């Protein structure tokens, strides 16, 4: 049996009565009080997630940006110090090795926050492609990461408003941390990156300020309501960014890995599209369910805000328009759904 890794907050989760589950090699809290109350706390007030399992890679050197621009789909020239962007690490066929956020610390130093399950794969992928003047390091073990999200997150933390995808060194109640205006819930909020030895104290301060601990269960329902793709479910090495609706993070005038293939898919039009749908009948779609006409559900759940089944799935491109009715095979029962515009749920204010 594989030994599961534990974040620096493991003991706090157990003390709070969290249900701990294996996730991407880590033992993580799936819920504390319950997925639905945690979800609603993030939508209406403020929740805090331990996302210390996520990976952090640092890329440094005079040619750090050149290396990253050859590997990442987005346009790094648009970044200044203190700004971040969402980007894809792509393979030769335009598939998605990982999705990540790139932070420009200086013109010669970048931080990538990557999915926990892909930390080692991303690191190896980038090391193999290093060029003289660039150095990639896995610094994941040095940091804890807390996502504090919700319409009252900034108020509760006593932080001023700042543009989405900006970041700065700062402190919370005297604890030094990097304050990133990013998240995975569609709500306002921050992700706080902190030295691993201070992670427990920071968590305690954030909880004392009124953030409700929320687990991976709510993290999944929140991101699905706003249609953020999950790597390993909705996107992966076999799916391309254009079909996944992520063309907006692909700078196709650049020459990153797989750009030629993506240009071709864009020119010809994708054969299938990742669409969002809402169930018209009582049923909860789940990953892997077939969609009539040659499609498949890649993520599905019960939406706490809509109180009905919702999901993402690939369908033939000609049946992907909003308003199109789909039939989903729910363990042998045909259940009707309707394609909707993304996001499925629109928070009052964006992240």
């Amino acid at each position, binding site marked *: 049996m594989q030994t599961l890794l534990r974040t620096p907050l493991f003991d706090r989760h157990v003390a709070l009565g969290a249900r701990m589950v294996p996730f991407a090699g880590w033992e993580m809290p*799936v*819920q504390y009080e*319950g*997925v*639905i109350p945690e979800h609603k706390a993030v939508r209406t007030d403020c929740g805090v997630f331990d996302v210390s399992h996520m990976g952090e890679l640092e890329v440094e050197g005079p040619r750090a940006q050149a290396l990253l621009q050859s590997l990442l789909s987005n346009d790094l020239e648009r970044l200044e110090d203190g700004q971040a962007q969402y980007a894809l690490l792509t393979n030769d066929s335009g598939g998605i090795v990982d999705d990540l956020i790139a932070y420009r610390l200086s013109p010669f130093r970048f931080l990538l926050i990557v999915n926990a399950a892909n930390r080692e794969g991303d690191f190896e992928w980038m090391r193999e492609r290093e060029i003289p003047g660039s150095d990639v390091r896995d610094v994941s073990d040095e940091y804890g990461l807390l996502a504090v999200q919700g319409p009252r997150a900034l108020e509760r933390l006593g932080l001023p408003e700042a543009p989405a995808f900006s970041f700065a060194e700062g402190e919370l109640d005297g604890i030094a941390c990097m304050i990133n205006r990013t998240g995975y819930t569609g709500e306002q909020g921050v992700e706080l990156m902190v030295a691993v030895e201070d992670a427990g104290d920071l968590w305690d301060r954030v909880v004392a300020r009124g953030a409700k601990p929320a687990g991976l*269960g709510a993290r999944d*329902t929140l991101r699905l309501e706003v249609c953020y793709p999950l790597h390993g479910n909705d996107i992966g090495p076999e799916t391309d960014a254009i079909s996944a609706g992520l063309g907006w993070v692909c700078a196709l005038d650049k020459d990153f890995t797989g750009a030629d293939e993506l240009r071709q898919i864009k020119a010809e039009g994708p054969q299938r599209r990742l669409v969002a749908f809402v169930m018209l009948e*009582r*049923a*909860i779609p*789940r990953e892997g369910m077939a969609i009539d006409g040659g499609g498949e559900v890649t993520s599905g*759940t*019960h939406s*706490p805000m809509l109180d009905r*089944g919702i999901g993402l799935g690939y369908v033939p491109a000609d049946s992907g328009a909003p308003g199109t009715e789909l039939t989903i095979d729910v*363990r042998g*029962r045909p259940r009707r759904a309707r394609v909707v515009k993304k996001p499925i749920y629109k928070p009052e204010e964006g992240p």
Partner: protein
Amino acid sequence: MAAETYPDELRYHSEHDWARIEGDEALLGITWFAQDSLGELVHFEPPDEGATITKDASYGEVESVKAVSELISPLSGEVIAVNQKVVEAPETVNEDPYGDGWLVRIRLSEPGEADSLLAAAAYKQLLDEQ
């Protein structure tokens, strides 16, 4: 959420289902342990009224946000009522698993099967051993 209880007047199946036997009929539901393990229920897929269900076999499903669980019938019979309150508001099962949160009413076809079910004390012992 209800507090953990296992009423003495019910009979239990080891798959965490209960039966309240009333003459030649029975109400069926899931135990406090089952609803606590699943978390807040968000869907109940009931059998059709008139359907025949069989002891130890699946007769429907309940789902939480994260999980799907088959309902295992503790007894055999014909479904004569489905609890529409749970269809409309599945969280009723979490609030009151042995009362308003009953799932179906059946007419027993094999009343003798009840002898093989567990009394509350035996079911609690089973939970302790898990």
